[in-house]
């Protein structure tokens, strides 16, 4: 199937969703109106740690238009804590602070009023009495016994400390010619969508139904809301027809939905919570990983990297959330694209008095890739070897797939060397080197950065049982339903919101390809959660594989039924029918049209094969290919597919000013069979832009007193069109053997390697000064200061 030329798949086709968006006719959560709507604003506490002594809302409640003020204590008495995938029952999390504030900006009460403006005004009239408590911000310090526990009941800041040894690590280190150790730190950044999180909850007491509309990208959202509020699963109805204004992982919104749901139940009013930018940045609980890596690598004189030890310490912030599991996903690609024979990995997650972390694009993979690629650069420098040659020497070769890595995952396919060759040719590497040298001659700092890395895709959740034995999750299914109506039109149902991934285009293209009909004639709709089949939302680069897979399988079932009806009518074998979309022709020249089939299926059961049900409908609930096993001996197979990307960049900057300019950016990308080329290239460019932000600009930086310093777009800097250069995208296709068309994931592409590549370039530029940058983001001020110090030191010693 993969070898044939597709009619619609992989062809340049427009994205169905774009039409409504360019006209301003998307339907986002803030566009959802209701005549009787009540509005929520959230009161923060400004201390990083404090006991809540009293909240006096009487003056606020007396204001016209104020409906209610709800505190954490009221909530805690009425609802269950939010779900936590770890075994840490005393690390309780509620939508509002209960008894104690655990980070600066945390919400202590919710004000509900007739308008958002009134609610905000009322906050100024609430008296909050607190007693400041000791706090901790640094993760290493948080681990110490004398550190104040963020959750006193838990009596420690440790959420998770898992040690794995895969293969003969000690033997490999002992046998290796050399060893080197280093530490790098990934700063706390996030995806920061332009649309903040928002949710509207409506309780219908007559139907006993809670309707939720939200700007959300969260697996099992309805289940989690029902659990926390003590409702049955079929009393919560999440509507999936809300367009989400960007997410890239973070729009989980569980605390917001539980709070708003509680308020709707209590007040019998539709309640709306749309974060303002400050609420979002400071307390939306949507920061990404903040991770320190201590790495040791063992390698030989010829550049062979034998073994690696990695300690990853992640600062989860004040609550567990999904953060600890973001240390788990990278286990599925812990050696990157390299033949590293053994690995020791220690994953530590700690609480501190910073905002809670949420899933961010790549789920921890981009930081790990940054550490791995730094290791490759350091080994090359140590051996005085070319950085590219060292990588080529260690890369898994095309004929070695399927390739089992030490931690238990098997890589499906790849041709890393060819992708790199194509990139070197496309970027004209010798000319790039010449440009770099010329820039240096002209007095500029200039460096070439390279990064090779993997995008594990297909979104299995097997890191959950690996990190927590009592968690037995082994499926992460996705589903799709298709119906052909009595007029012959095809409608597919998908069971998720989308935040720009083009799922309607994905599904219509896949179904059109299999049924042989124009995808633009297929309508894709999003029912609510009660009308849906099981699914897990667009996380973990999984939708091309899983939603595309479920849609393809459902379409194949329909096609089989269509062929069976045709074979019965034409009195021939289904295998002999020439299926041509609109009309079926049999070998003997007789034919039956699409319209005839519809007529038979919908109106003439006497014309159908014996025992066949009427109608033309199908569904499919698809398990993750290759997934399903529980971990054994600290190992588990995680992802069905592994996409590959190779970044080659030239960065230059003035040694005094230190503002990096990306002079050239080429990426080679292999995500198997591409379903829609414009969607994949757009995601890759967007991922690179996000990676440039993580490498150079973006950080949720806290000062020593625990205050978030970057809480608006004026100080949390994101790449504009000036910071993102033109990008040369070199495509390659190594199909996956595990998916219906050979497709792999691409939703995290670009982001997974861009920070490593840019760090590599900047470090290459300053290598002659014997300095290095070991923490992201590498800000302009840090570059200029460090160069100034180094050159000062040099001139002092001359």
């Amino acid at each position, binding site marked *: 199937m993969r070898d044939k030329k597709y009619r619609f798949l992989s062809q340049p086709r427009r994205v169905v969703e774009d039409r409504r968006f360019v006209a301003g006719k998307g339907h986002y959560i803030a566009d959802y109106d209701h005549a009787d709507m009540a509005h929520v604003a959230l009161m923060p506490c400004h201390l990083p740690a404090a006991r809540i002594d009293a909240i006096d809302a009487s003056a606020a409640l007396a204001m016209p238009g104020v409906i209610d003020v709800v505190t954490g204590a009221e909530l805690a008495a009425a609802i269950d804590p939010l779900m936590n995938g770890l075994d840490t029952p005393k690390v309780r999390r509620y939508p509002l602070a209960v008894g104690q504030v655990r980070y600066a900006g945390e919400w202590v009460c919710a004000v509900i009023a007739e308008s958002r403006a009134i609610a905000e005004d009322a906050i100024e009239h609430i008296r909050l009495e607190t007693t400041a408590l000791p706090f901790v911000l640094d993760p290493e310090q948080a681990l110490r016994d004398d550190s104040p526990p963020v959750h006193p009941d838990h009596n420690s800041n440790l959420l998770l400390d898992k040690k794995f040894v895969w293969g003969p690590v000690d033997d490999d280190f002992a046998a290796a010619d050399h060893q080197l150790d280093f530490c790098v730190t990934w700063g706390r950044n996030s995806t920061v969508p332009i649309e903040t999180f928002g949710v509207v909850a409506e309780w219908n007491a007559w139907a006993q139904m809670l309707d939720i509309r939200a700007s959300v990208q969260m697996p099992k959202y309805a289940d989690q809301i029902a659990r926390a509020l003590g409702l049955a699963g079929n009393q919560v109805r999440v509507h999936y027809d809300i367009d989400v204004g960007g997410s890239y992982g973070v729009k989980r919104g569980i605390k917001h939905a539980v709070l708003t749901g509680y308020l709707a139940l209590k007040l019998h009013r539709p309640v709306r919570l749309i974060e*303002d930018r400050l609420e979002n940045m400071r307390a939306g609980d949507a920061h990404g990983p903040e991770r320190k890596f201590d790495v040791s690598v063992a390698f030989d004189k010829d550049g062979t990297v034998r073994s690696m030890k990695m300690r990853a310490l992640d600062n989860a912030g004040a609550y567990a959330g999904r953060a600890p599991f973001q240390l788990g996903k990278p286990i599925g690609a812990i050696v990157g694209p390299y033949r590293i024979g053994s690995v020791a990995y220690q994953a530590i997650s700690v609480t501190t008095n910073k905002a809670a972390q949420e899933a961010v694009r790549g789920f921890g993979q981009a930081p790990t890739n940054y550490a791995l690629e730094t290791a490759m650069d350091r080994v090359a420098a140590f051996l005085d070897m070319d950085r590219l040659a060292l990588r080529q020497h260690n890369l898994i070769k095309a004929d070695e797939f399927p390739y089992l890595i030490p931690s238990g995952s098997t890589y499906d396919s790849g041709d890393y060397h060819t992708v790199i060759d194509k990139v070197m040719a496309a970027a004209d590497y010798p000319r790039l080197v010449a440009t770099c040298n010329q820039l240096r001659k002209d007095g500029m700092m200039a460096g070439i950065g390279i990064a090779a890395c993997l995008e594990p895709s297909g979104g299995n959740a097997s890191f959950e049982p690996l990190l927590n034995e009592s968690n037995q999750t082994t499926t992460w299914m996705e589903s799709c339903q298709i119906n052909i109506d009595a007029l012959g039109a095809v409608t597919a149902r998908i069971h998720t919101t989308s935040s720009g991934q083009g799922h309607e285009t994905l599904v219509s293209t896949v179904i059109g390809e299999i049924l042989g009909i124009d995808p633009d004639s297929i309508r894709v709709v999003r029912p609510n959660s009660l009308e849906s089949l099981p699914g897990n939302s667009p996380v973990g680069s999984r939708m091309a594989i899983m939603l595309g897979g479920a849609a393809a399988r459902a379409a194949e079932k329909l096609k089989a039924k269509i062929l069976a009806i045709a074979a019965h009518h034409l009195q021939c074998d289904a295998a002999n029918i020439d299926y041509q979309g609109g009309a079926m022709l049999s070998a003997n020249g007789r034919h039956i049209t699409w319209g005839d089939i519809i007529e038979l299926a919908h109106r003439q059961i006497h014309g159908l094969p014996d025992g066949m049900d009427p109608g033309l409908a199908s569904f499919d609930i698809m398990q993750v290919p290759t997934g399903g096993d529980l971990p054994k001996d600290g190992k588990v197979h995680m992802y069905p597919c592994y996409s590959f990307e190779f970044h080659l960049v030239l960065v230059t900057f003035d040694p005094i000013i230190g503002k990096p300019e990306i002079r050239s950016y080429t990426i080679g990308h292999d995500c198997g069979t591409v379903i829609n080329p414009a969607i994949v290239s*757009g995601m890759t460019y967007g991922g690179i832009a996000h990676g440039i932000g993580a490498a150079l600009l973006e950080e949720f930086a806290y000062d020593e007193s625990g205050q978030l310093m970057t809480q608006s777009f004026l100080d949390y800097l994101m790449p504009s069109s000036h910071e993102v250069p033109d990008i040369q995208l070199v495509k390659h296709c190594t199909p996956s053997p595990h998916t219906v068309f050979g497709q792999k994931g691409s939703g995290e592409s670009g982001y997974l390697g861009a920070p490593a590549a840019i760090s590599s370039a900047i470090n290459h530029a300053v290598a002659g000064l014997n300095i290095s940058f070991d923490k992201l983001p590498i800000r302009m001020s840090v570059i200029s200061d460090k160069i100034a110090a180094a050159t000062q030191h040099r001139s002092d010693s001359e």
Partner: protein
Amino acid sequence: MNITIDINGKDVTAAIEPRVTLLDFVRDVAGLKGTHAGCEHGVCGACTVLLDGEAVRSCLILAAQAEGSQITTIEAVDGTTRQPGELSIIQDAFCESHGLQCGYCTPGMVLAAKTLLQHNPTPSREQVRDAISGNICRCTGYVQIIDAIMLAAERLQGRNQPADGA
């Protein structure tokens, strides 16, 4: 206070608090939801509208300040010459190049593009880059947005651009 603003050629009158922004007036009073709130302090450009033909940030302007001005939102980006469901040349170029993903910044981008092409019908890629540098997009990395605006410029040239622009 009572104010009247000409939005997309229609007078919209309402009694509002003086603190209401033009953004909130457009969305909540005029009911035009294509203009989006992003950062709420003039950095991201998601709330871009045209005020007397020039791109401005509606989150930074009070509704009262806009009285007597003509406001154009994404809903009337091409005047009133097109039927619902019919895209302008710039909008069509954004679709052709897939110069968007989630669509949230897109109305602002389209209006920024319209303003640019009115002033400079044959921009270079660098000029396009400058023109959209005040509009933040987190999805696309801008590459396909710049492609879209270059394509729109080309098509507008080929079609004898009308006097009032795109």
